């Protein structure tokens, strides 16, 4: 066995070169991952655009025109279309983020383990998560912006602050996505957890978050579902922004705080799970 060279100094040339080369990825690694994910969209761009434009048209037509005719008196002083539109925006955001944070994470760890490939480069686990969420945020904002545009065409946005509903809906999606990814990043074996998540998570949220009718219509014992539902908070926030629904300021602040907190915790936990799982 060769002997150790004790004269070595920490500032040897190849170490300096490594530190210099590592600087850019340390700073911008998250953006490199986002770039990768956007490039990978080429494969499904057509589907994504069709979904982004097609879904709002179908939903708004069915609910805003069809179902609305059964509710001629509207809800809380506005037309049914106005009432339901912010909820549809927030739900659309949730659909995008739920998709992006479920199978793609299992895929990246297991079936096509690209996360390990990324981590073999200077990219860290936390940067992979950040980059994924930058991409998800962009996709979500584009989706809900298109939704918002279609809603405006239907004449359902009356407040000048209406466009802020895009941010409210996107924040809703991201909060839910971060919560989902904090769970999916721990899944080692696919035993149908994704279907369970859809059935017992996403669908009930969609139905019982004051989406199609005010939360107060539910029996009192079911109303807490709404209070803990990020979709309810996001939808209510959207209603405040699109048509100036009246509610106490503290409640509006609670909506914002709840979504931001959920996102922050979800992101923190996801980054932690990624870091641990990649270090095996």
């Amino acid at each position, binding site marked *: 066995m060769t002997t150790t060279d004790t004269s070595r100094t920490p500032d040897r040339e190849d170490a300096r070169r490594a530190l210099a080369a590592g600087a850019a990825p340390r700073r911008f690694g998250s953006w490199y991952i986002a770039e990768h994910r956007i490039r990978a969209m080429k494969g499904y761009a057509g589907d994504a655009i069709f979904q982004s434009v097609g879904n709002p048209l179908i939903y708004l037509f069915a609910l805003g025109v069809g179902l609305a005719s059964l509710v001629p008196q509207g809800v809380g002083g506005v037309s049914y279309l106005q009432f339901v539109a912010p909820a549809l925006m927030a739900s659309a955001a949730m659909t995008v983020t739920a998709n992006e944070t479920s199978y793609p994470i299992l895929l990246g760890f297991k079936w096509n383990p690209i996360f390990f490939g990324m981590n*073999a480069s200077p990219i860290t686990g936390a940067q992979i998560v950040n980059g994924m969420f930058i991409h998800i945020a962009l996709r979500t904002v584009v989706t809900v912006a298109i939704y918002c545009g279609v809603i405006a065409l239907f004449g359902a946005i009356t407040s000048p602050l209406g466009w802020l509903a895009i941010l409210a809906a996107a924040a809703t999606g991201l909060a839910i996505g971060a919560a989902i990814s904090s769970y999916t990043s721990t899944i080692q074996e696919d035993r149908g957890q994704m279907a369970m998540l859809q059935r017992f998570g996403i669908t009930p949220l969609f139905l019982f978050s004051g989406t199609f009718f005010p939360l107060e219509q539910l029996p009192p014992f079911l109303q807490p579902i709404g209070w803990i539902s990020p979709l309810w908070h996001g939808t209510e926030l959207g209603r405040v922004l699109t048509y100036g629904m009246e509610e106490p300021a503290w409640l509006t602040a609670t909506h914002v705080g709840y979504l931001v907190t959920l996102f922050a915790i979800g992101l923190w936990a996801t980054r932690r799970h990624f870091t641990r799982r990649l270090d095996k």
Partner: protein
Amino acid sequence: MPQPVITARNLTKKYGDFTAVDGIDFEVAPGESFGLLGPNGAGKSTTMRMVGAVSTRTAGDLEILGLDPNDHGPDIRSQLGVVPQQDNLDQELRVRDNLLVYGRYFGLPRSVIAERADALLEFAQLADRTKAKVDDLSGGMKRRLTIARALINEPRILLLDEPTTGLDPQARHILWDRLFRLKEQGTTLVLTTHYMDEAEQLCDRLVVVDKGRIMAEGSPAALIREYSSREVLEVRFGSDKNAEAAEKLKGIGERLEVLPDRILVYSANGEAELERITHLGLEPITSLVRRSSLEDVFLRLTGRSLIE
């Protein structure tokens, strides 16, 4: 003497009660081609992940390019090329795009990456498949693309974990040829393998590992010289008669190794030993004289075969 690019001292990795790597020491010099030879589960891949600065060691010291991976993971990884055991190319991207996105991870400018990508696809003999889907490539092509990807940052050290496992003989030879060229260009290669012929072809120096420990270290030729004879005579008497025949063969050759299906007679002159066996009145069903290989070294050191 140039400073080693990798220095491991008492390097240890435990998973709960299980010790995957049990206090190993080694150094790799710049430009050297260094191999870890051992059976599956010997701790080679775990060692590679620690050297690749993605797996935190449990104990011991490790320096890559003079830096501790615990503090400088991303910096060290900026200087490495990694070819993992399991391909992890992005199947949603096409062949060339895999190189383009990977180059970005190192913060390289797009123009530099594009230039290198084309040269590397040429090197990997994939220039006519740039727009192909990764899924449509053969196993050998995927490996070559993974190697091309690992070279996009012009790494100081290329880590290859079982680079030819699962490939057919022709694909292996193409890959060896490519790796040999890299070696000639002065790239430091660190590879794990359980194929002795691969180790003999590619490694200047290697360590034989078993159960997380280093059993021996040296060049392939030196290891064979030290732990085996020049030639090996393999004789088969039929599986139920081997043990019985082995009794009678005692004293023949320098050493005998009785395997379930055959007996190995270690000797400087295999033909002479075969003659002695026939003089004893024993008639093997088949006999074969060959040169000693690393397989024999491993058998000698561990009492087990590399591929079981």
